[in-house]
């Protein structure tokens, strides 16, 4: 009896506040917009009876999805989200790997300090970290002031309100998520294997490519997913740092929901975003599974 209640309490909580809301989104994505409260139709209450339920079901259709697939703007925003997420994941990897490598090779006295310095920004507000770039990247901001002072450029560069600012924002906020799994993988790496490779005639650089990278692979993959998955649905970074022509699915969803008040289309966009994410999420879970098996 006690076991049952132990299972039921968290189970029912998650059913009510995770599974049910999800079904509601799915249902509304199949409804039509209506000028009423709630602003969608059809609706069904248990008191309406079974016959009404059949009628309600026949009122649901894929119209919103068809409409979305015919509108070039939504295709563009999906592709542009993918592009931004892929490029910023790659840039994060380029920056994170040398840092993780440096920490893994630091002396044991320094490593905890360096790791704390990586984790500290994670505890600081995400919003503030994004905001901190607004003053740096603006046309009269510090970066432009500095570049003009050094004489590299004569006129300020337009960085804020472009995709470049979004890349910088994503790389900056998600960097710790990439550094930590790569560091964990490099830390497990047995350095004597590298020595063996060099004894057997590898140069340090070929040993790095042939030994270090393959052994750190799962950490790299985990880090890439940890950046890619949230970056794809990102809303705050493109809103604050990107421009009006920075298209990302999260922004489109918010826009449909609050500006256009089209809840059915917003729900359909949410379902599409989720469908795009299913593949990377499943791959990520598999990689984690493999990591656990290696660790065990």
């Amino acid at each position, binding site marked *: 009896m006690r076991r049952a209640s132990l299972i039921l309490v968290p189970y029912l909580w*998650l059913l009510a506040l995770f599974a049910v809301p999800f079904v509601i989104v799915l249902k509304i994505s199949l409804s039509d917009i209506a000028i009423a409260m709630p602003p969608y139709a059809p609706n069904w209450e248990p008191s309406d009876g079974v016959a009404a339920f059949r009628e309600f079901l026949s009122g649901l259709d894929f119209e919103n999805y068809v409409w979305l697939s015919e509108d070039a703007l939504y295709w563009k925003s999906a592709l542009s989200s993918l592009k931004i997420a892929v490029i910023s994941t790659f840039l994060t990897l380029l920056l994170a790997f040398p840092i993780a490598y440096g920490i893994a090779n630091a002396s044991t006295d320094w490593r905890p300090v360096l790791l704390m310095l990586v984790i500290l920004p994670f505890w600081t507000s995400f919003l503030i970290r994004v905001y901190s770039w607004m003053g740096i990247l603006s046309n009269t901001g510090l970066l432009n002031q500095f570049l003009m002072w050094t004489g590299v450029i004569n006129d300020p560069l337009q960085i804020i309100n472009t995709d470049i600012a979004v890349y910088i924002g994503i790389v900056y906020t998600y960097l710790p998520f990439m550094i930590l799994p790569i560091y964990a993988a490099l830390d497990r790496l047995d350095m004597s294997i590298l020595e063996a490779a060099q004894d057997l005639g590898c140069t340090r650089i070929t040993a790095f490519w042939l030994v270090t990278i393959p052994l750190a692979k799962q950490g790299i993959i985990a880090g890439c997913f940890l950046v890619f998955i949230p970056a794809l649905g990102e809303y705050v970074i493109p809103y604050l740092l990107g421009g009006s022509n920075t298209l990302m699915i999260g922004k489109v969803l918010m826009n449909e*929901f609050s500006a256009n008040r089209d809840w059915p289309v917003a729900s359909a966009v949410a379902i599409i975003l989720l469908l795009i994410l299913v593949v990377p999420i499943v791959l990520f879970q598999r990689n984690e599974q493999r990591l656990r098996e290696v660790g065990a």
Partner: protein
Amino acid sequence: MKRFTWFNATSLTIGFAFLYLPMIVLVVYSFNASKLVTVWAGFSTQWYVQLFTNSDFAQSALVTLKVGLASASIATILGTMAAYVMIRGGRFFGRTLFSGMIYAPLVMPEVITGLSLLLLFIAIGLNRDAFTIILAHTTFGMCYVSVVVSARLSTFDRSLEEAALDLGCSPLAAFRLVTLPIIAPAVVSGWLLAFTLSLDDLVIASFVSGPGATTLPIQIFSAVRLGVNPEINALSTLMIAIVTIGVVTASLITKYTARRPMDA
């Protein structure tokens, strides 16, 4: 053999400069006398004065703390229960669905979580205020807690629990006297994680909060969406200071307690 080369030193310097310079700039410019945030016009603490006289910020900081404390605490209880069920619960009906519901919120985009919860609250006619934010934050918080706690639960020796049961403990007493002390560090880090995520959340809170309950991130966001704001720089500096002191203290405590030999 570890090699620390000039390459490592350079990449660490560049990396940490990138991570910390923006925040240092923010802190420095919070003491700027000019309202033009990019022009330095001398030292001043006027933005702090203005911040403290603005009661809106105090109000929303209070809401944020209340929501954070409540949701992190409920999330810790539910998440620990969920972790216990996952690791010790054996087989039960719908176990796959259960573990799916624990892991899915961790990777779910915030816009979807926020939208779906809002649609739920509207469908059941629940008024949106601090309470609905607590419900939302508890839901994703308990998933993080359960992942942290189940990692700890899966590594500890189950025979300790069995010994307690053999020696006449009730299952509840065995949990309280044996299991809980062992998983306590994970429970505490789970609580801290849920608390921090709650304080930090903007997107989900802006979906599920009503006009009466503005959290600090919502208020910061509405202040900065139009551009840089020196008052927000002052507020950010305070928040960065609190987090830094907290994290440094926590890591010093861990370092100190880890060095002490285990008593008992």
